[in-house]
């Protein structure tokens, strides 16, 4: 039986209970393309992510980007898979507010046999770039 990649990821990202970390940052799938290995999702940070300045603490911004980038790195592989992050760099371009809808996009830049490179962007609902990131991860097929 051949693996239906689109059906598998649609089920993972919309039908199953969300992983706790994804639920914390208010992950909600907008769209994805399994052939081009990218994903777009909405996020909503809870007040618990607020820093002393009243905006989102940087790590939680990295957490949202890690979510879409890891999914892009997973989708880029042939079967059911994960993409554990080895290293990630985040640039905090503008303050990120909590309690508003944010848009994250992650894509696979290169899928190698032993290494995967991804990048991600976080924008406001009106399209302003708030943060960007790049990461390297490793392909890891999963039994499902």
């Amino acid at each position, binding site marked *: 039986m051949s693996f239906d990649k689109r059906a598998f990821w649609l089920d993972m990202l919309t039908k199953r209970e969300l*992983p*706790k*970390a*994804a*639920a*914390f*940052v208010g992950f909600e799938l907008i769209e994805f393309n399994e052939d081009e290995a990218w994903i777009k999702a909405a996020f909503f940070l809870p*007040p*618990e*992510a*607020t*820093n*002393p*300045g009243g905006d989102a*603490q*940087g*790590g*939680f*911004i*990295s*957490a*949202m*980007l*890690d*979510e879409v980038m*890891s999914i892009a790195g997973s989708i880029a592989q042939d079967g059911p898979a*994960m993409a*554990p*992050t*080895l*290293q*990630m*760099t*985040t*640039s*905090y371009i503008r*303050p990120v507010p909590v309690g508003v809808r944010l848009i994250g996009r992650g894509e696979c830049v290169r899928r190698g046999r032993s290494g995967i490179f991804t990048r991600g962007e976080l924008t406001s609902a009106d399209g302003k770039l708030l943060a960007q990131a790049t990461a390297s991860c490793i392909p890891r097929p999963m039994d499902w």
Partner: protein
Amino acid sequence: MSDTEKPRVSDAEMLARFQNSKKRPPCSDTLGMRLAEVEQDKMRIRMDFDVPPSFANPTGAVQGGFISAMLDEAMSTCVIIASNITMTAPTLEMKTSFLRRLMPGKASVEARILRLGKSAAFMEAECFDPDGKLVAKATATAIPMLFKRLS
């Protein structure tokens, strides 16, 4: 540096000031953060964390971004303390290497400042699991800014 504007307090006093603070930002409580050590001369601190299970990825381990959140918390606090609570330092860029899995529960982070200049600060931090194994390491750059809320 503006740390001459206010008299310095001892490491113990600085530690107590943070531990007894009623004005903790929400992110500190979310991460279960507790400042454990302050060494002002070395511009170094250690923080203990109690990571809630709500930060788990599908494998049950802590999602990488939340490890970055602990590292960021420690590096940012390090600048606040090194400036004698006169400055904060919004992070410009941060790079994290994830060496091992970390399960929800106890963790600790050591952070130090490599250079605190007028227009830029350079920090690094390491996250350890309860067995003392290195879980993640980060470096970051930030812009020091006068901080009015806490002073």
